[in-house]
């Protein structure tokens, strides 16, 4: 088995601030994902990466940057936090890209922007 660790668990920022969320996995999975989950909504894909140093935009990439410098880690940056923004950011990994691959999720980072 393995685990996905996300830091921080809670993140409070100011409007316009640049904020970075981190994710680590020890599954040795090739593919990693960042999703955004708004209250009462489904998960929306922000970025994914199929290998180290690879980055692919998802449906919600505007306003975000990502970085995959190591196989085990995937970072997400909110480039300019929006006032009153509240969401949970979920990191996931899977052994490969494709619909048959199970995705394993971390516990999430809860973002609040004041």
């Amino acid at each position, binding site marked *: 088995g393995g685990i996905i660790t996300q830091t921080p668990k809670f993140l409070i920022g100011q409007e316009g601030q640049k904020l970075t969320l981190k994710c680590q996995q020890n599954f040795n999975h090739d593919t990693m*994902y960042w999703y955004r989950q708004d209250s*009462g*909504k489904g*998960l929306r*894909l922000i970025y994914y990466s199929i290998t180290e140093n690879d980055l692919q935009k998802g449906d919600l990439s505007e306003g975000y940057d990502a970085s995959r410098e190591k196989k085990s880690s995937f970072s997400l940056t909110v480039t300019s936090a929006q006032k009153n923004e509240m969401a949970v950011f979920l990191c996931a990994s899977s052994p490969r*890209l*494709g*619909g048959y691959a199970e*995705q394993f999720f971390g516990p999430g980072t809860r973002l609040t922007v004041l």
Partner: protein
Amino acid sequence: SQWGEENLQALSIQEGEDVTMNCSYKTYTTVVHWYRQDSGRGPALIILIRSNEREKRSGRLRATLDTSSQSSSLSITAAQCEDTAVYFCATDLMGYKLTFGTGTSLLVDP
């Protein structure tokens, strides 16, 4: 249905009852994932059903897939309090990434 921009659906049942959650999708998919998300945690896969399967069972869980109507269902038999969670379906609409539905919040009362 838990697709698209609809808000989270909510179901409340008594312990011991059976419950079915539905999911409809818009285009062809090769697989439907059903995930469960407990409060404060990330989603976890509970059943994966492929397009060539009509039904898949795992313990008290049963998933069905009807590719002709582009719909899937997840049933829980004799629900227990620990089944309280949000349940999502997800499909691989683009063949390489999952697209998640909005979810169904299930509350099982003792």
